[in-house]
């Protein structure tokens, strides 16, 4: 059991609802996913015009990190190289791949083409927050809490990171599910140990 690191915050987005630490903070039902993402951006009063240029997967990951770090994160406490990002999903960038494929018969869209890799989402988040630590993107059939705990623990164990955002950012057409965890060495109020069981419980139930 590894109790050196803690899950200090979480964010979940599914079924057009956004949760922060298990508490609902935004909802916009009965809209297209793209409208929901844009509405959430406006709701949280994020000033980042580049958001509108992103594909839906990047928008989802971007919003998840914004909500995850809102109020909880103290970037001044970390060097840029000490913050990592480890994400995974099942559909990689297929949502945008298909949209791009739809343009190749006329004039291929450069703006879509640049998002035909899922790790572009990580790049967008790193640019926004100036993260320069280790990052990785994995494609699995489903969220693998055991793998995630081991991989991220290894980064901490090798002194590569002092904080890490990890989790699941899945999106294909209208389907979407995001669960992100903020992992830190410092214990805080309401934090729980960074353990497989806690990752799994938060992923499934929104709370450890």
């Amino acid at each position, binding site marked *: 059991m590894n109790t050196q690191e803690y899950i200090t915050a979480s964010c979940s987005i599914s079924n057009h609802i956004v949760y922060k630490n298990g508490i609902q903070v935004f909802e916009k039902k009965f809209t297209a996913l793209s409208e929901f993402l844009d509405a959430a951006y406006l709701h949280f009063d994020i000033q980042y*015009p580049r958001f*509108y*240029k992103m594909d839906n997967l990047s928008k989802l990951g971007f919003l998840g990190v914004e909500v995850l770090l809102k109020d909880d994160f103290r970037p001044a406490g970390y060097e840029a190289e000490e913050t990592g990002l480890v994400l995974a999903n099942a559909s990689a960038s297929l949502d945008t791949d298909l949209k791009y494929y739809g343009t190749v018969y006329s*004039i291929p*869209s*450069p*703006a879509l083409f*640049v998002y035909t890799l899922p790790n572009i989402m990580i790049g967008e988040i790193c640019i926004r927050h100036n993260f320069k630590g280790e990052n990785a993107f994995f494609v699995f059939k489903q969220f693998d809490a055991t793998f995630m705990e081991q991989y991220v623990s290894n980064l901490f164990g090798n002194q590569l990171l002092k904080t890490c955002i990890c989790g699941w950012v899945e999106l294909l057409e209208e389907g979407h599910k995001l669960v992100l965890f903020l992992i830190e060495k410092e214990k805080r109020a309401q934090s729980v140990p960074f353990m497989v069981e806690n990752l799994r419980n938060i992923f499934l139930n929104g709370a450890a």
Partner: protein
Amino acid sequence: MDKLMSDLKKQIIVQLNLRDVKPEDISDDQPLFVEGLGLDSIDALELIVLLQQEYKIKLSNAEDGPKVFQSVRTMADYITAHQAQKV
């Protein structure tokens, strides 16, 4: 020319997803890249697509790009010159 520049401003906003920008925010001679409207290299490619889609103009020489896409006015000049050649 004014009508063409007005159309271009609207088309640039749509093509580049500049949701926070209004046509009146873009002046005719404002630089489009870096210190002006802040467009990047992918936006430059999208502007080439815009010329192709809306005006059936293919930018034959990539080295012309920086001159053509300097501002809305230079884009309009380029389009006008090409349309005159076709007549």
